[in-house]
């Protein structure tokens, strides 16, 4: 994992968790089980999670607590999943969403 993970902290302890593999845009990545998808992606250097509806502008997370809808992604085929609160699981398939994402009816 990259240098964005905090290994030592003067106040906090981050207990070691289980590493899991997941897929981002088809590419295999590693993160910790139970952390939000956005945290795992950020630690892996992925900041763009979404593209805006009208202008296709890149979007990352903004509030990180499930309020703002800036981080909506397609997770295991389901669009509009909040990557900042959805927990990472082994084998998850995560994709960037454009606008509203694919219609569920088309699946």
């Amino acid at each position, binding site marked *: 994992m990259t240098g964005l993970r*905090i290994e030592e*902290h003067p*106040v906090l302890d981050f207990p070691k968790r289980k590493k899991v593999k997941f897929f981002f845009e088809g590419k295999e990545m590693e993160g910790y089980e139970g952390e939000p998808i956005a945290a795992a992606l950020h630690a892996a250097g992925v900041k*763009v999670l979404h593209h805006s509806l009208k202008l296709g502008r*890149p979007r*990352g997370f903004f*509030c*990180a607590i499930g*309020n*703002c809808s800036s981080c909506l992604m397609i997770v295991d085929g389901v669009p509009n999943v909040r990557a900042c609160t959805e927990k990472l699981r082994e084998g998850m398939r995560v994709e960037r969403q454009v606008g509203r994402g694919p219609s569920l009816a088309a699946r």
Partner: protein
Amino acid sequence: MEYELVVVGGGPAGLSGALKAAQNGVRVAIVDRQEELGGQLVKQTHKFFGWSRRGAGIRGIEIGRRLRNAVLAQPHITVFTGTEALGYYPDNSLLIEGPSGVSRITGKTFLFATGAQERMILFPGNDLPGVYGAGAVQTLMNVYGVRPGRSVLMVGSGNIGLIVSYQLRQAGVAVRAIVEALPQIGGYAVHASKVRRLGIPILTRHSIKEAHGKECVEGATIWELDDKFRGIPGTEKDLDVDVICLATGLTPLGDLLWQAGVSMTYVPELGGFVPIYDENMETERPGIFVAGDAAGIEEASTAMLCGEIAGLAVAAKLGKIPRHRFEEERNVLARELAALRSGPLSSKVRTGYERIRALVQGRRGS
């Protein structure tokens, strides 16, 4: 399921309200969308001020832990975590979605302690990934152990901006500067001194002009402001940052209150639209109470006290405690609250609450 009190929001205000009500015999349900109770306390690694019996000298995370443990040990309280409140219905029910799907719970009374959300400010590039709310930065690094980037521009020198700058340094992230549009620093001097001792410049009368980057933030330009808060051309400075952190204030999260038909009013000193409520934290819809940032942007110590007042008022309304005992205890809490709000930095919120009091009194008089 029917409860005597349904609390929406398990932060300092909601938990304090739930505890106070339950201790007086009220059957309570708490609904919170996070997995862990505590609200924003779960990421506050700094020590609190105020009085020792109100948690001064204790880190926010520890205050959250104590509240959480007290709530979990309280047999009158049922906790629904990982559960979102989707809507309030006029038959006193709340639609919730949790791990076991969508269901409905009803309450004789409600306490909406739904907190706040971060305010966005306008500048070119403010939608780029890398522009994050200060709360988001805190969550990412203090809860999940991930740094937001390597180098940060902090916008806003209120307590949140100062504290998060300090925490960024604790996590090993550089803070290039803190810019503040006003001529003076917004937060407590003790936080500002801590940050300055670390060598982080606090630039008053400065703001961000624009963010640079194609896919995400690759830099920022700041500039000086004149007396009318306009940027002064020629004073621009480029900063090599990959994160722009916005600590430009919070606004109450009132969606459920609006939806429940509670009367709201715009009070800029309290962060935006807030519910109109009386000295017992009860809104104009009888049985709906509010506390914490949803009732006006303040801080955790006052949120806990307001929560307690609301919890006590619920117990009194439901006839669990005699009126005189309620008034006695409420007055003690109200005095404590007034003392916490007596400092010079609270003058803004005092003005805000006076506006609400005046509104309530005006309506009672008419």
